């Protein structure tokens, strides 16, 4: 248990250092003078750019040795100081707070929706492996896995907001606006988790303890609930840990598509605008979100499977 959390904490630290180092190196390797670029980003490319660049150089200490600069960046990070956005001028951490919250909500609702869809389909497919539901589920999973998330999002947008007019195509604030982006992500996730659930339920259904529960004369629903679900859920949950990548990457795509004001949207914007501190900050936040999701899944598997606790 403590080992889990320690490993995840280490991973979080690793993410922070790697994102920082990567941005730092790229910034220095980039053609042109960093101070010049920052000055141009701040004050616009006018005639007194050289003067402005000199000021920026002094202000940010760009003339000092690289190692010293990098260590200073790390030190600032520890004090939660991520610098200021080159575009808006406000502190990066300030903007991140709002956006990260929005993204976490989106990811959480997508995950919840996908758990309503995927494992349920998987359960019915697995209890009658090879049956009609199983085959339909398989076809659905194959199709939804081959559709890129952005195409799926556009299709949902066209159908539900343009044609039917049920849901708004973009925006933020209420559950109505969240539903389409969350559904886009959830369908992709469910396509995969339904199959994992199906295989795991099929395996449990073949197991002796499952047959024994039936021989005892327990009603079918009790057999499934008490002896099936929990055992079948373990592989699904650990599979979701692998899908944390899909979820975090999907957040970038879906947020940009639906103009949802989260961390992914902010990252894409910062990339387009070359707002390096914002790129660093948003990438850091996304990396940490990824670590947190993985940690939560660790805890869930732990809770679902008491055998792990006894072993640890």
């Amino acid at each position, binding site marked *: 248990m403590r080992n889990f959390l320690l490993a995840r904490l280490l*991973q979080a630290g*690793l*993410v922070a250092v*790697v*994102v920082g180092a*990567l*941005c730092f190196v*790229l*910034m220095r*390797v*980039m053609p042109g003078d960093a101070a010049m670029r920052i000055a141009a980003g701040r004050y616009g490319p006018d005639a007194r750019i050289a003067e402005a660049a000199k000021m920026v150089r002094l202000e940010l200490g760009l003339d000092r040795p690289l190692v010293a600069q990098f260590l200073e960046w790390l030190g600032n990070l520890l004090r939660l100081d991520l610098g200021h956005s080159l575009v808006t001028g406000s502190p990066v951490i300030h903007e991140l707070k709002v956006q990260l919250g929005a993204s976490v909500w989106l990811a959480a609702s997508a995950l919840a929706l996908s758990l309503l869809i995927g494992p349920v389909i998987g359960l019915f497919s697995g209890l009658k492996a090879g049956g009609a539901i199983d085959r339909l589920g*398989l076809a659905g*999973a*194959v*199709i939804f*896995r*081959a*559709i*890129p*998330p*952005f*195409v799926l999002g*556009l*299709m949902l947008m*066209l159908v539900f907001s*343009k044609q039917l007019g049920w849901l708004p195509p973009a925006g933020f604030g209420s559950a109505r606006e969240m539903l389409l982006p969350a559904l886009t992500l959830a369908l992709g996730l469910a396509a995969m988790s339904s*199959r994992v659930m199906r*295989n795991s339920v099929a395996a449990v259904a073949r197991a002796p303890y499952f047959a024994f529960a039936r021989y005892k004369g327990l009603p079918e629903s009790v057999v499934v609930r008490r002896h099936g679900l929990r055992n079948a859920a373990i592989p699904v949950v650990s599979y979701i840990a692998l899908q944390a*990548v899909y979820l*975090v*990457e999907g957040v*970038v*795509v879906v947020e*940009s*598509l639906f103009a949802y004001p989260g961390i992914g949207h902010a*990252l*894409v914007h*910062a*990339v*387009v605008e*070359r707002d*390096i501190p914002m*790129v660093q900050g948003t*990438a850091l936040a*996304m*990396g940490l979100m*990824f*670590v947190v999701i993985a940690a939560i899944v660790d805890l869930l598997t732990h809770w679902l499977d008491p055998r792990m606790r006894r072993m640890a």
Partner: protein
Amino acid sequence: MSTIGDIARPKGRLTTGRMFGAGLLVLLGGFATIGPVLIPADPAAQDFSASLAPFGGDFLLGADHYGRSLLARLAHGARLSFGLAFLTMLAAAVPGVLLGLAAAWKGGWTERFLELTATIVLALPGLMLVLLLLAFAPGNYGPLFLGLSLTLWVEFYRVTKATTKSALAQPHIEAALMLGFGSRYILVNYVLPVVAPMIATLSTFAMATAIIAVSTLSAISVGLQPPTPELGSMIVELLPYYAEAPVHVLLPAMLIFLLVLGLQLLAQGDHP
């Protein structure tokens, strides 16, 4: 012993799913390679009088809002997607497999160092790494390609390492080692046959991932920029006209879907 055999061999069977995937890929591959040669139309040539032209007539598959031939753009887009995905896959597979072999063969510090590198890459979502690289050179093939291969090599490395390690521990290979057969001979005759089918499967998955990633990034306007006939950006460009020409929007989307579907079916026909 049996586990390696299970993973490596029986999947070679030609199931219907696999056959279908392979057929689909041959068709699309043909369209991507021969299409741009056979179709005389320039994918960038604009003709405003033919804006959103329907099927048939001068344009077999119609024209987009600038009056550019959709057939030509689709063929060039398929070539771009296929080509970029293939290159990305190669750039990920070659170092991944070689490093995996090295780690399994040498062990010790080589393995520890490579393991650490792989862990670091895995700690970051791949798309984020690509976005970071793109931040410094938007709209270029270079960072897109580099970023994707940088994230995809890890999978090749890990699978190669694990398989090679357990293969090397098998009695008949140990015997060959002790009999003094050269490392080259053992790699080619004993290790490669076990690793190769898995690498083939991973390669098709890597290509599918690359195709989706490139089109997605272009669609959210950080990947390749519009004049390039890229399937993802074509969809977004045509989207405002979906009411007048719904099929035109569907065509590039369909093409991506079929490409990815073909690759995925080929990769794991038995149990998707």
